[in-house]
């Protein structure tokens, strides 16, 4: 049987997984960590510690700032040195909690042993509460608070849980290594998520360029006592790891414009999120670290590191031998969706998945020429949009037409930019248009809400 993939668009970049053989090693503790209070989508967390406080690993340092928000925990033990603005990856100031590291003392109640706990608590509410208190957010990139995603709105029914092990971005290998090294924990995490969602069947989607992971997870599932969990090998295609693309690939269902995955009965969680859920529920361990791939052809030492949240990037890079001389660009994340880092002093956040070093030749943009109406961008767009049209609408500043042409559905995967033979910066422009449309949609929603409240 031909392997499945999503039905519209997509591209096939070389996967360049050169760090696939590197085991996940823990990074030694840095002298200080800088924990941002805005590591997730939604309202920033509110700091609950004061300068001079002693904290332990796993202790809450900032609490939820709203419904869509997440707890943030200290990733080290030590003293809070300062709470104030610090420049993030993009150079914009964010409120960060600086903690000077003293020893490595964990909060009581956190199980730091390696023993696998397979018994799942029965009370779903307690599980959700643990996920919420553990500060678990979607680690696939969007960092959406997991407890919110696991509480479907009333009236909607989940039919399938999909665990996203695609890792379709070139170069990234942290999810792959997690599947190989912590496969048992991921499967238990998946079983917990499955139970919370009402014992729905679960599919772990893995792209076929990771045969070791597919074989390993199949073995693990056979060993463990959970039912209805299966592995589905998927054809290699970018952006398969996109939530809506993965649902299309696994379930052959398409999420409508502006819809949520739950509208077609699906909930998608990343492999790393499943692991974080396992840690939070079975081990009482909140998110204090995550695995980060450090890679690039020009980088002499490939690595997958277990990094404490808030570790300065420069510390990670220095640990591995410093920035190579011919590196021109450092990207946080993969080459397709990642963002260039303007400030290497910035600290990691929960969602940091990779540091990628690219050379001048790999990264320099080619001169832009005119659109030749070849339509490659429209073929490549996995959301079925027409990037050439959106690009023109953005230039004309026509927000109304941008919305009519669904600019808000753009997932910023970069397939259009990748496929354009004229090197037109399609995504850069469309992202602006998407921002404008989202602004209009939000303003409209706020106005509607105000009207509804006024009627009450």
């Amino acid at each position: 049987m031909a392997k499945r993939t999503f039905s519209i668009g997509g591209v096939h970049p070389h996967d360049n997984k050169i760090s696939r053989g590197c085991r996940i090693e823990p990074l030694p503790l840095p002298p200080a960590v800088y924990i941002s209070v805005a590591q997730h989508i939604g309202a920033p967390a509110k700091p609950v510690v004061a300068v001079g406080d002693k904290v332990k690993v796993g202790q809450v340092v900032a609490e939820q700032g709203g419904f869509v928000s997440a707890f943030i925990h200290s990733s080290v033990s030590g003293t809070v040195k300062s709470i104030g603005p610090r420049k993030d990856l993009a150079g914009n100031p964010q409120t960060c909690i600086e903690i000077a590291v003293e020893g490595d003392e964990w909060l009581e109640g956190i199980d730091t042993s390696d023993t696998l706990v397979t018994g799942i608590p029965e009370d779903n509410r307690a599980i959700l509460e643990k996920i919420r208190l553990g500060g678990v957010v979607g680690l696939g990139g969007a960092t959406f608070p997991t407890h919110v995603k696991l509480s479907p709105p009333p009236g909607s029914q989940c039919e399938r849980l999909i665990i996203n092990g695609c890792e379709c971005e070139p170069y990234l290998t942290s999810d792959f290594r997690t599947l190989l090294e912590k496969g048992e924990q991921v499967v238990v995490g998946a079983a917990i998520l499955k139970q919370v969602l009402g014992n729905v069947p679960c599919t772990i989607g893995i792209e076929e360029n990771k045969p070791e992971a597919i074989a390993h997870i199949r073995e693990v599932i056979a060993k463990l006592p959970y039912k209805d969990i299966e592995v589905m090998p998927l054809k290699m295609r970018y952006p398969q790891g996109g939530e809506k693309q993965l649902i299309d690939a696994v379930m052959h269902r398409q999420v409508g414009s502006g819809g949520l995955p739950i509208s077609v009965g699906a909930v998608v969680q990343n492999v790393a999120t499943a692991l974080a859920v396992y840690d939070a529920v079975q081990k009482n361990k909140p998110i204090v670290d995550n695995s980060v791939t450090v890679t690039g052809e020009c980088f002499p030492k490939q690595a997958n590191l277990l990094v404490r949240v808030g570790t300065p990037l420069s510390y990670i890079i220095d640990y591995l031998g410093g920035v190579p001389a011919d590196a021109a660009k450092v990207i946080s994340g993969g080459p397709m969706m990642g963002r260039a880092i303007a400030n290497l002093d910035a600290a990691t956040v929960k969602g940091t998945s990779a540091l990628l070093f690219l050379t001048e030749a790999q990264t320099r943009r080619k001169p832009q020429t005119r659109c030749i109406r070849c339509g490659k961008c429209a073929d490549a767009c996995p959301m079925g949009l027409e990037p050439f049209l959106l690009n023109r609408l953005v230039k004309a500043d026509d927000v109304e037409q941008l919305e009519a042409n669904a600019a808000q559905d753009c997932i910023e995967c970069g397939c259009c930019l990748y496929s354009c033979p004229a090197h037109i910066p399609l995504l850069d422009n469309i992202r602006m248009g998407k921002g404008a449309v989202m602004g209009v949609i939000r303003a409209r929603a706020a106005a509607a809400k105000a009207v509804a409240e006024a009627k009450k």
Partner: protein
Amino acid sequence: MVNIIIWTVAVITVLGLVLALVLYLVAEKFKVVEDPRIDEVEKAMPGANCGGCGFAGCRAFAEAAVKAPDLDNNYCPVGGNDVMARVAAILGYEVKAKAPQVAVVRCNGTCQNRPKTNDYDGVASCKVKAALYSGDTGCSYGCLGCGDCAAACQFGALSMDLETGLPVVDEAKCTACGACVKACPKHIIELRNKGPRGMREFVSCVNHDKGPVAKKACAAACIGCGICFKTCIHGAIVFENNLAYIDYAKCKLCRECEAVCPTGAIHGVNFPKPLDKDAVKARIAERKKKAAEAAAEVKPVETKEA
């Protein structure tokens, strides 16, 4: 043959007359009565259709001005007081004269003052660049240098200086329509009163970072030391969030703040003479001395009363 020609002419003539009558009746029936003053006002306008007044163009402004009960909220910055006086005469309203304004670029982060920390390789648009990250220098507030403001200006009053990387305003051409103010994603450009003979004083920085951070990013940054705030006797300086701002309505152009600013972030333009910093500083010192003496004299009296 002749018969056919006569018939044709007759039929077409009658048809033409009938249709003309229909058109006339329809035009009469659906006539839109428009205030004739709208046309007059539109004629008096500069015709730039720049949108600086807040309306879609000169015609839209004219319609709004005719409908409005007064001219308090409608002002054409391009035409200025002359045009507004004419508009007021047409409409029979009174209009208050407004001080002419000019666009002021509040960033002095030249390539020399503000060293680059990275190279930007993306789309040459400030809007796109600002959405991506803080910019290619250490300052996350300053000019991004892609020239969105210059592109937005339809009077040719803004141009990018390639040497400094900053936009330059041609005061003679600037009409204060505000298009550049809207185009700048960093809100660096501000419309300020032109001042007497063009003389004005302003803080050429919008950086809210703390002193050492701002100074490290840019040699000409406002470091938030507050000396200007303490020196100003006219209460014209607002000092907030590590940044000084001069209120042009209150500024008396004494240039004391400019003399005491340690980083040169405060600029005075169009003054006839260059600023003699030492003389101004001596003046300030003298005033402070007198004030201290006066305070010393007053104090014993107060204690006696108490």
